[in-house]
């Protein structure tokens, strides 16, 4: 490769990556995006849950217990999606030193942990009447429990150091190592013989779930996904503002 080409290309990539790293620009953009996440989230979730609770039929085998699906499945999807985003933010932080990536990882962590806990709890409430047990150490349930511990570990690690930068770095390394759990969660039902059912919706095949049950699930999944990112965006905006306040106060103290 021509040396002059590689040297010239690097700042361009850096500029593109850091374009929204400026806190002021990020705050302006995020404030504009926030309503487009929040209001569709409320609408889609309301439609999905109303459809799931009152309009969709009971399952021919599980009866009304299937209605837990409309919150359990989106929570499970968001638990993995949130961790993937956490790992991506960690990669941006470690490799490209993106100034907002650390804050994004810190703010995704608690929200991801909450939806993972919700996934585990609703799964347990669904499991008791259908499987006859609250919990079983099968591959899917155990790998999601490991994901919950990864979130908790990340939250603790980023706050464990006096110097925040060291905490962010340690948390980013943990997040990247922990990302290996995501394919294990996804393929656990295929790789091992599990009590948990295999996926009903895949990218490669037609869904094995009736359309009358599928549309409320699609709405609740879309609504809760938008809601997840609305909450993360609001938390990240607050974190950027808090960091700016600390910076201004430090500068003021140094000048005095």
């Amino acid at each position, binding site marked *: 490769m021509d040396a002059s080409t590689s040297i010239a290309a690097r700042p361009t990539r850096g500029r593109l990556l850091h374009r929204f790293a400026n806190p002021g620009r990020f705050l302006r953009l995020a404030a504009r995006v926030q309503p487009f996440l929040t209001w569709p989230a409320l609408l889609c979730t309301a439609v999905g849950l109303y459809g799931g609770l009152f309009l969709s039929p009971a399952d021919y085998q599980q009866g009304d*217990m299937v209605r837990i699906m409309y919150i359990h499945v989106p929570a499970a999807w968001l638990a993995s999606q949130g961790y993937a985003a956490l790992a991506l933010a960690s990669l941006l932080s470690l490799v490209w030193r993106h100034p907002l990536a650390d804050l994004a990882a810190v703010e995704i962590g608690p929200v991801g942990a909450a939806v993972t806990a*919700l996934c585990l*709890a609703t799964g347990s*409430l669904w499991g*008791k009447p259908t499987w006859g047990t609250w919990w079983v150490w099968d591959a899917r349930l155990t790998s999601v429990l490991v994901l919950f511990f990864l979130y908790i570990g990340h939250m603790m690690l980023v706050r464990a150091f006096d110097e925040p930068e060291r905490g962010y770095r340690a948390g980013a390394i943990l997040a990247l190592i922990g990302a290996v759990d995501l394919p294990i969660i996804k393929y656990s039902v295929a790789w091992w013989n599990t009590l948990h059912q295999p996926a009903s919706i895949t990218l490669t095949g037609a869904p094995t779930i009736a359309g009358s049950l599928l549309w409320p699930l699609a709405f609740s999944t879309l609504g809760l996904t938008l809601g997840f990112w609305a909450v993360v965006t609001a938390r990240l905006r*607050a974190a950027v503002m808090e960091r700016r306040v600390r910076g*201004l106060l430090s500068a003021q103290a140094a000048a005095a």
Partner: protein
Amino acid sequence: MTHLPYILAAYALFAVVVVGLAVGAGVRLRQATARLRAVDKRTGSR
């Protein structure tokens, strides 16, 4: 519906988590906005 308590418990848990996250984020954002505005005004940085 013999399984109604399980369904109700799942949805109640869902409501607690979602409302908790949303209200927590909203309150924090509001407080951070007010604090930044106050500090900006005091330091005259805008």
